[in-house]
C-alpha cells in the first residue's frame, strides 16, 4: 500500500535522529536530536493511525505533543542551572 512509504521514510528518519543523538557530542546536541525524535514520533503515530485506519492513535500523538515539550524544557532548565 502507498501508505507504507511514509512510514518507511519516518522509520529511516528515526534512525538518523538516533545516530545524531548518539554522536552528540554535547548535551545540547543530544537534546536537539531527542526533540526531533519525538517530533518524528508524533508524525509516525499519525501516519500509523492513517495506515491502520485507527483514529484513536491520534490521541497518543496529542499526548506526546503536549508532554514531550516539557521534557525539552526540563533539559534546557538543567543545562542552564548546571552552569550556575
Amino acid at each position, binding site marked *: 500500500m502507498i501508505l*507504507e512509504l511514509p*512510514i*518507511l521514510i*519516518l*522509520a*529511516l528518519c*528515526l*534512525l538518523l535522529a*538516533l545516530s545524531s*543523538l*548518539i554522536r*552528540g557530542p554535547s*548535551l545540547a546536541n*543530544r*537534546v536537539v*536530536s*531527542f526533540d526531533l*525524535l*519525538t517530533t518524528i*514520533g508524533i508524525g*509516525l*503515530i499519525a501516519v*500509523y493511525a492513517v495506515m491502520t485506519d485507527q483514529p*484513536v*492513535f491520534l*490521541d*497518543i500523538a496529542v*499526548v*506526546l505533543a503536549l*508532554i*514531550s515539550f*516539557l*521534557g525539552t524544557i*526540563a*533539559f534546557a*532548565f*538543567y543545562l542552564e*542551572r*548546571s552552569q550556575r
Partner: protein
Amino acid sequence: MLIAVLSGFGFSLAAIWIARIGRLRGWLFALLPLILTLYFLSFTPAIIAGEVITASYTWVPSLDVQLAFNLDGLSWLFALLVSSIGTFIFIYAGAYMADEPLVGRFYAYILIFMASMLGLVLADNLITLFIFWELTSFSSYLLIGFNHKDDAARKAALQALLITSGGGLALMAGLILLGLAGNSFEISTLVAGGGVAEHPLYVPILLLILTGAFTKSAQVPFHFWLPGAMTAPSPVSAYLHSATMVKAGIYLLARLTPVLGGTDLWHLLLPAVGGLTMLVGAYLSLRQVDLKRILAYSTISSLGSLVFLLGLDTPLAAQAAIVYLVAHSMYKGALFLIAGIIEHETGTRDVTALGGLARIMPAVTLAAGFASLSMAGIPPFFGFVSKELLYETTLGLQDTAVLFTTLAVIVNMIMVAAAVLVFVRPFTGAIVETPQTPHAVPLGLWLGPLALGTGGLAAGLLLSQVGSTFIAPAVSAILAEPIEVNLALWHGINPMLILSIVTVLGGLVVYRYRHVYERISSRLDTSERWGPAQWYERGLDAVLMLGQLQTRILQHGYLRVYLLTINLVVISLVGITLVTRYDFAGQLPSTDLHFHEAVTAVIIAVAMIYVLFARSRLAAVVALGVVGYGIALIFVFFGAPDLAMTQFAIETLTVILMVLILYRLPSFANFSSRGQRTRDAVVALSVGALITTLVLISTTIVQPSLLTPFFAENSVTEAQGRNIVNVIIVDFRGLDTMGEITVLSIAALGVYTLLRLRTPSQRKVDLTAAVETGEIAEKGKSEEAEGVQ
C-alpha cells in the same frame, strides 16, 4: 498433684514480695517444701503397698502432651529428696543470704527449680518431662549466674546452660523418636508396651537420650560444667549440683530402664561412661584445694558410679544405685552447705588456708564429721551401706568383676581421702588466720547440714526400715517388678567388708601422700590443654569465627555483589530447572516482522546499549528516554493506546525527574576493573538469555486468556465503558488501581520526607553549606511556601 508441682511456680511469682519480710524469710519459704514433704510422705503406705498414684490433665493433646503425673516408688523417692532437702536448703539460704539484696530473686529462681524438679520426676509424659527438664537447666542458669557481676559466674552459667541444653535438645529428639517408636508419649504405656529395644530406631533413640542424661549428670566428657557451676551460692551447689538436679539424668536412666535397658548397647555404654566418670571425677577431686571444687569433682565421680550401676541393670545394681543416690544426696548436700558456711564465715574456700574451725563452730563440725564419715563409708553411716552394695555388685559381675572392682576400690580410696581432706584440714588443728574472722554460726545455717549429716547416720541405724520403705519401691519401679530389699550393716566377714576396710586404709594412705599424688598427676596431666573444657572453648571460638567468616563472605556490604549473588541464584535455580526439567520442543513463535517495528526495535536496542557506555549521565538519561519512547511506540503498534499514552507521559516525567536530580550528582565514573566488568557482563547476559528463552517458550504455549472474553463481552453491557482497558483498571480490577495510586502517594510522601526531614545534626551541616553557597535566602522562601499550606 498438679498443685504440688505448680505451687513452686506460683510462689516464685510472689517471691520478691515475700522476701521483703526480713530475717525470717528463710523459714517462711521453707514452709512450702516442708508441706510438700509431708504431702509426699502421706503417700508412704500406698507406695509401700506398690500402688501407683496417677493424675492427668489435658494440656496439648494434639501434640500428645499431657500434664500426666505418676507417683511410684522411684518418683516418690525423688520427690521426697527434692522437697525434704529443699526444706533445709531454704532455711539455710535465709541465713546464708541474710544481707543479699536480691534474695527475693534467689528464692524465685530456686522455687522455679524445685517445682521443675518435682515436675520432672513426677511426669509420666515424655514431653512434659522434657519441659521440666529444660526448666531445671534454665533455673540452674539463673542460679549459677546469681553473682552476676562476676565474669566467671556468667561464664560458668553459660557453660552449664549450653552443655545441659545441648544435651537437652538431643534428649528432645530422642524422646520424640521414642514416642514415635513406642507409639505413645506416656512412660507408663511405654513400660507396659515394650518392644522399643527391637525397633530400628532404638540405637539413635538410646544415643540421643543418653546424651541428654549424661550432660545433665555431668558424665565424662560433659562433666566440666559442674565444677564451673560452683560459682553459684552454696545452697545452689548443695541443692542443684549435688543433691537433685544432677541426679535428673540418673533419674531418667532409671525411669527408662524398663523401656530402653537390657540391651547390649546399654550394658556397654553406661558402665563404660559411668566407670570412666567415676575415675576421672575422683582423680580430679583430690587435685583441688578449693573446698567446693573438691566436692564437685567427687560428685562427678559419684554420678559416674550411679550411671555405672544403672548400666548393669540387675536388681542388686539397682538397689546399690538407689542406696548410693540417697546416701550421696545427704552427705554431699551437707558438705556443700558446710563449705558455704566456711566461706561465709572465713571468706575463703581454700582448704590449705583453713584450720581449727571445730572450736568456733561445734555444731557445724559435728555435721561435717557425720557427712564425711558417711562419704568415707564408715559404718554405721549410710555411705558405708552404699559402698558395700557397690562392691557386692562389681564382685558379682561375670567377666569384668576384677576390672570394675579394682576401679571401684581405687575410686573409693580417693573419696575417703577427699572426705578426710574436707573434714580434717578446715576443722582440726590450730586456728588459722582467714580473710574474715569466723563467728558463731546461727541456727539457720547449721540446722540443714546437721540434719542431713544426722540423716546419714539415722539411715544407717534404721537400715531395714529405710530399705523396705524408701529403697524397695524405687528399685521395684526401676525394674518394673516388685523387689524385696534387705539391707543390713553386718553380713559377717565377706569380701565386701574386706574391700571396705582396704578402701578406708588406702584412703588414709592416699591422704597422707597426696603431695606425691599431686606431683605425679600434675606432670601427667594434659587436660589443661586437651580436656573437654578446652573443646568447649574451642567450639565456641570456632562458632564465633565461623560466624565472622561467614558474615564477611555473605554480608560484606557491597551492594553490587549482593546483586551479583541474586543473578547467580536466578541463573542457577531457573537455569538448572529449565535445562534439567524442560523438554525443548524446538518450536518457535511466528517470525513476521514489519519494517517500522524492526526499526523501533533497533532504536531501543541501540539506545539501551548506549546507556551502558554513555560517558555523561545526562546523555544516558536521554538514551533512557529513547528506550521508553521506543517501547511506547511498540505499544502503539500492537494496539495499546492507553499504554502508549501513559508510557509517553511517564517517560517524560521520568526524564524531568532525572534531570532535576542528576545535575546534583557527580558525573559517571568507571570504578570497576575490566575483569569485574567482564564478569558482570557475562552474568547479566546469562540472565538476559534465560529471560529470552522463557519468553520464547511461553509464547509457544498456546493458552488463550480465560479472562479476556468475559471482559470483551461485559465491558459495554455491564460496565458501561467502551475502552476495555480503562474498564479493567477502574472497574473489573479497580482494586489494583487503588493500590497503585497508594504506591504513588507513598512515593510522593517519601520524596517529601527525604528532601525535607532533617534531624537537628544534619540541619547544622546543611545550614553551613547553605550559608557558604548563599542558598539561605531561597531556603527561607520555600519554607514560607510550606507555611502557606
